[in-house]
């Protein structure tokens, strides 16, 4: 992939930035800045720019919410093809996507369904494909690496790696910027979506159908966006809001506007889908997901929240046929002082399962049980087993299967 730029800096009378914040001069100057082939010849005359720009892009339908009128073609702000956008080419280069990955697909991944309702022009289908692939590679990675992880923790870790917040962070760290509003004149290298108006609740229900309800007048609306327990809020919502939501769900209307986080996450999913379609199938996708998503840091041991760790440890020992766990005080200091410290070890027969330190005996005992349970759940085989996706291309390849534990301790 080559980028070239031309030095036609004279006779520039256009304003430097357009409404969307992207430099217009750049678009004029670097209209030929990207060529997917390995063509090395630089100059394309600026006459050809205008001829290319007049090609009608299958573009967005006009919306009333746009801050500027876009039905008439402005002579200053050119309509750019995705292959003409320097931003898009730079993003392509930043992600080190191969030449096989066309700029058109990357440009399409940046168009949210709220900006363009026609499915062959927006990233909806690509995002669905990418979501499936992300789920596949993340779940197999977690389950093979931590075969004893409880199901709840697997779900939480999946959310930590490929949830909307994590994917939105990935997209932001790829340097993707969002357009102020979708429109024909927006640079194809910007994320286009319809922004959710401030104060509008946005929720994702259990079957992940996004919906939003206009804010009612003179009424405080709780902020659902940052509340992890959306289901709890759904249970407490007033009847008229519920009626409106159910009507919206039944009619099958998709969300008209989304927050930036959701749109950015959709873009990352769509990019993964595009990698699968263009960059060489499953193996390239696996490499992409592992290098961009799974290489991030998520502390799995910080995801646990135990309700009754001592009881759970006791049940675990019964299930596994160990001797019953006994907590023993190992060390203490300052029992009658203001800051007593106790160190408690939990033993099963001769084996020490865990150790905890606390300001009181019950606290130290609980921490010892938690330490023992985490030691069990976070077991990771040292010569790591192969991921099932290793055999995706070639079923005859040598494969070390993972041993998956029976699951959570339930009592």
């Amino acid at each position: 992939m080559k980028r070239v730029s031309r030095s036609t800096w004279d006779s520039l009378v256009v304003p430097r930035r357009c409404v969307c914040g992207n430099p217009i001069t750049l678009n004029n100057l670097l209209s030929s800045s990207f060529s997917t082939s390995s063509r090395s010849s630089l100059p394309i005359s600026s006459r050809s720019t205008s001829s290319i720009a007049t090609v009608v892009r299958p573009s967005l339908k006009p919306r009333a919410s746009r801050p500027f009128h876009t039905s008439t073609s402005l002579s200053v702000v050119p309509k750019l093809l995705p292959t003409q956008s320097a931003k898009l080419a730079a993003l392509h280069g930043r992600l080190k996507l191969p030449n096989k990955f066309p700029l058109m697909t990357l440009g399409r991944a940046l168009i949210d369904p709220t900006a363009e309702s026609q499915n062959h022009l927006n990233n909806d289908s690509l995002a669905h494909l990418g979501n499936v692939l992300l789920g596949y590679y993340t779940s197999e990675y977690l389950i093979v690496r931590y075969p004893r992880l409880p199901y709840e923790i697997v779900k939480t870790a999946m959310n930590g790696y490929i949830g909307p917040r994590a994917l939105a962070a990935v997209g932001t760290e790829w340097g993707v910027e969002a357009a102020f509003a979708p429109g024909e004149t927006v640079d194809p290298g910007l994320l286009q979506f319809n922004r959710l108006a401030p104060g509008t609740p946005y929720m994702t229900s259990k079957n992940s159908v996004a919906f939003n309800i206009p804010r009612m007048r003179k009424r405080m609306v709780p902020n659902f966006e940052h509340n992890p327990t959306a289901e709890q809020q759904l249970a407490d919502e007033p009847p008229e809001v519920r009626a409106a939501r159910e009507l919206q769900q039944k009619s099958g209307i998709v969300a008209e506007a989304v927050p930036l986080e959701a749109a950015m996450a959709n873009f990352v999913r769509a990019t993964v889908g595009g990698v699968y379609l263009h960059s060489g199938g499953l193996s390239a996708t696996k490499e992409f997901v592992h290098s961009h998503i799974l290489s991030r840091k998520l502390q799995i041991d910080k995801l646990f929240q135990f309700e009754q760790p001592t009881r759970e440890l006791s049940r675990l020992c019964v299930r596994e046929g160990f001797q019953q766990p006994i907590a023993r005080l190992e060390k203490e200091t300052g029992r009658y002082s203001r800051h007593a410290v106790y160190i408690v070890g939990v033993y099963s027969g001769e084996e020490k399962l865990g150790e905890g330190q606390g300001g009181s005996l019950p606290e130290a005992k609980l921490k010892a049980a938690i330490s023992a349970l985490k030691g069990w759940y976070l077991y990771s085989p040292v010569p790591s087993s192969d991921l099932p996706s290793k055999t995706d291309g070639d079923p005859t390849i040598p494969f070390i299967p993972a041993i998956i534990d029976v699951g959570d301790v339930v009592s």
Partner: protein
Amino acid sequence: MVVKGIQAVSKAQNGVGAFILQCKRLEFNFCEAGGSSRGMKAFLKHRLADFARQNPQVEMVVAPRPHKHPIIRGVYINNREKVVCVRNLAVLQVLQKAELLRDASGVKIKKINKPVQSLNDSVRGIWSPYHATGTDVYKV
């Protein structure tokens, strides 16, 4: 009795997997008439094409800035900007400044005292007075 999950979001470790260059845009501003832009204009004519070709991950912007000294502005992924004035510089010096901005991370300049910065826990572990034995109790 169930284990509950505490929601968390993974943190970026740039370069552990993929490496994303932090400079996303370089803007080259010059004055058509001013003498201090002579080196900059020569850079734009003769060097910028090669420079852009070698750095496909950076968006290059060329824009006039009349009656001012020439500058190069780097825009970074953390939404900060770094601006270098290149008045009266020769072509190669302008190229050096462009490379400096390209390689910068965009974070505020700060003194780094520790040799290693990492999200991972220390391999050696934290010293505990309750587990050290003998004279090690007094060795921190």
